[in-house]
């Protein structure tokens, strides 16, 4: 048998069901990897004791014949999900010492399905970033390196720790959250699968809020089938989140296991052919189209005319929501408090010391665009553009069933590159943000390596609440691309 840490979630559940290994053995094997690869800084908090306790409980449940869908599967949780009794930081200094007295719905669902938590992963502060460099707890190192170049690369972000942990075989799967690409872009940078569900598919209750009209939890795994398995465990209607969709959870796993795309219409948006995209990524995209065609799908050129405006509109909408959401960090009820001579000064000192540079920048942008006299010119305008973006997709889906695009315009970059100008960093999410603005599901599938030996992903975007067709297409792409590389040394 292969090493327990090399197995996928689907394989692990089979091994556990056949009693070839106990959940405790599986947990221990993975905890050892956390030890070995601590230098990656993928975790903010490791929870080995809790993992063993949960694994023992899982073994007892299995012995009683009560095994759940993810029984005994070790998972890493992005440190943006509140976990009862376990410090939750959002990678920010302002949540110093915060121990949630409650559990997020998504993680509660996963534990109900039998999964085991090994730790909380590093991320960009409050999920604001595309490199994991804005974390108060330091950057995360991507397990991949350029051939013949020892420089450390970023894992992408904001779910950088979650992506690195899966790519380094520390866990078979992790949770992330995606506001503008925060699951899909790091998945592409780390050579793994990352799925952002339709807005409303997974509950946001207990997830530290960034931009509430965009935030959506989702899985990061090494295979499409595993993403379907995790999503199956995470999803479901939650009355505690008023934007949670009151819909039954479809059989995602069955969809991922039937990569039949005969006759499926694959939309190729012409506006995604933009300057600044690496030629290798454009070439990989062409290959992806050919692969889908060879598998029986029909490529259709479609147009999403407002694509180029999605990014600047996002950088009004997301900061506006962030400035409102982050108003709660005032040093009164939880987290950091920095004293001042009066209440106002205490607020200012606490927030000035507690928030990092990028978070402060976004709070200021958000406060400005919502302030008197600018609301219509910026915020309302951005919401109107958002309506046009959603309409573009709606019209495109009259002509096709899913879209195929690159996930990110480049492969992983070195820590320190692209750091000088915020706008250059923002451009990383140019291919993921449009679907986020329209609330659509998207999945990044590793499809090849560039000339430096770094992984590149392709993105499949589905119709709202049609993750099943998206998963079928993703499984077909995964099968055709047959990506079986792993980072050297992991």
């Amino acid at each position, binding site marked *: 048998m292969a090493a327990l840490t090399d197995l996928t979630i689907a394989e692990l559940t089979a091994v556990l069901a056949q009693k070839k290994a106990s959940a405790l053995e599986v947990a221990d094997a993975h905890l050892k990897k956390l030890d070995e690869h601590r230098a990656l800084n993928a975790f903010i908090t490791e929870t080995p004791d809790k993992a063993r306790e949960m694994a023992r409980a899982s073994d007892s449940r299995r012995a009683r014949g009560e095994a759940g869908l993810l029984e005994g599967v070790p998972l890493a949780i992005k440190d943006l999900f509140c976990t009862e009794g376990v410090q939750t930081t959002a990678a920010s200094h302002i949540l110093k*010492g915060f121990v949630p007295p409650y559990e997020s719905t998504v993680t509660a669902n996963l534990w109900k399905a039998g999964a085991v938590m090994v730790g909380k992963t590093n991320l960009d502060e409050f999920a604001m970033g595309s490199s994991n460099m804005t974390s108060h707890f330091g950057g995360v190192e991507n397990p991949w390196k350029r051939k013949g170049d020892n420089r450390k690369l970023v894992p992408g972000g904001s779910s950088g720790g979650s992506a690195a942990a899966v790519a380094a075989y520390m866990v078979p799967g992790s949770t992330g959250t995606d506001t503008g690409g925060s699951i899909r872009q790091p998945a592409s940078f780390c050579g793994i699968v990352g799925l952002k569900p339709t807005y409303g598919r997974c509950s946001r209750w207990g997830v530290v809020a960034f931009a509430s009209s965009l935030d959506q939890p989702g899985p990061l795994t090494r295979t499409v089938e595993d993403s379907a398995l995790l999503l199956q465990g995470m999803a479901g209607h939650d009355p505690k989140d008023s934007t949670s969709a009151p819909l039954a959870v479809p059989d995602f796993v069955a969809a991922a296991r039937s990569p039949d795309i005969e006759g499926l219409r694959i939309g190729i948006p012409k506006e995604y052919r933009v300057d600044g995209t690496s030629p290798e990524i454009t070439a990989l995209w062409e290959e992806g189209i050919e692969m889908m065609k060879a598998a029986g799908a029909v490529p259709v050129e479609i147009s999403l005319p407002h694509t180029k405006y999605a990014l600047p509109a996002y950088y009004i909408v997301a900061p506006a929501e962030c400035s409102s959401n982050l108003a709660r960090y005032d040093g009164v009820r*939880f987290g950091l408090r920095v004293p001042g001579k009066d209440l106002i000064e205490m607020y200012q000192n606490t927030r000035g010391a507690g928030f990092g540079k990028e978070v402060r920048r976004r709070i200021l942008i958000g406060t400005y665009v919502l302030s008197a006299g600018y609301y219509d010119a910026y915020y309302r305008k951005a919401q*109107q553009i958002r309506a046009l973006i959603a309409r573009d997709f709606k019209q495109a889906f009259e002509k096709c069933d899913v879209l195929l695009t690159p996930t990110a315009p480049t492969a992983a970059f070195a820590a320190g590159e692209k750091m000088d100008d*915020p706008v250059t960093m923002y451009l990383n999410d140019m291919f993921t943000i449009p679907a986020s603005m329209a609330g659509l599901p998207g999945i990044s599938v590793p499809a090849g390596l560039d000339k430096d030996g770094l992984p590149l992903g392709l993105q499949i975007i589905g119709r709202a609440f049609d993750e099943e067709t998206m998963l079928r297409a993703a499984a077909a792409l995964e099968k055709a691309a047959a990506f079986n590389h792993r980072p050297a040394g992991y």
Partner: protein
Amino acid sequence: MSLDKDTVSRIARLARLKVADEELAPLAGELSGIFAWIEQLNEVDTSNVEPLSSVSDVTLPMRADTVTDGGIAAKILANAPGGAVYIDPADKNAGGFFTVPKVVE
């Protein structure tokens, strides 16, 4: 759209963010760069376009206006950064208070 130091100082005050004086000018530069890039939105004619505030088609659900939770004062106060004061230290769920600096002279 270019933002000056005074504007940054004003929005920092609105956002209750302490920003050191020497950071105001660099921040004004960065924010001006971002807003200059955002200006391209003005190329789009949005007259007669309804703004989209939420992508979820569902109407926000209503529920009966009844108490659904409670009796967890100890949990709520557990993270109080200034420490909490309880009405009855022997029964922390009986209720209590967050503490803040004195606001009335």
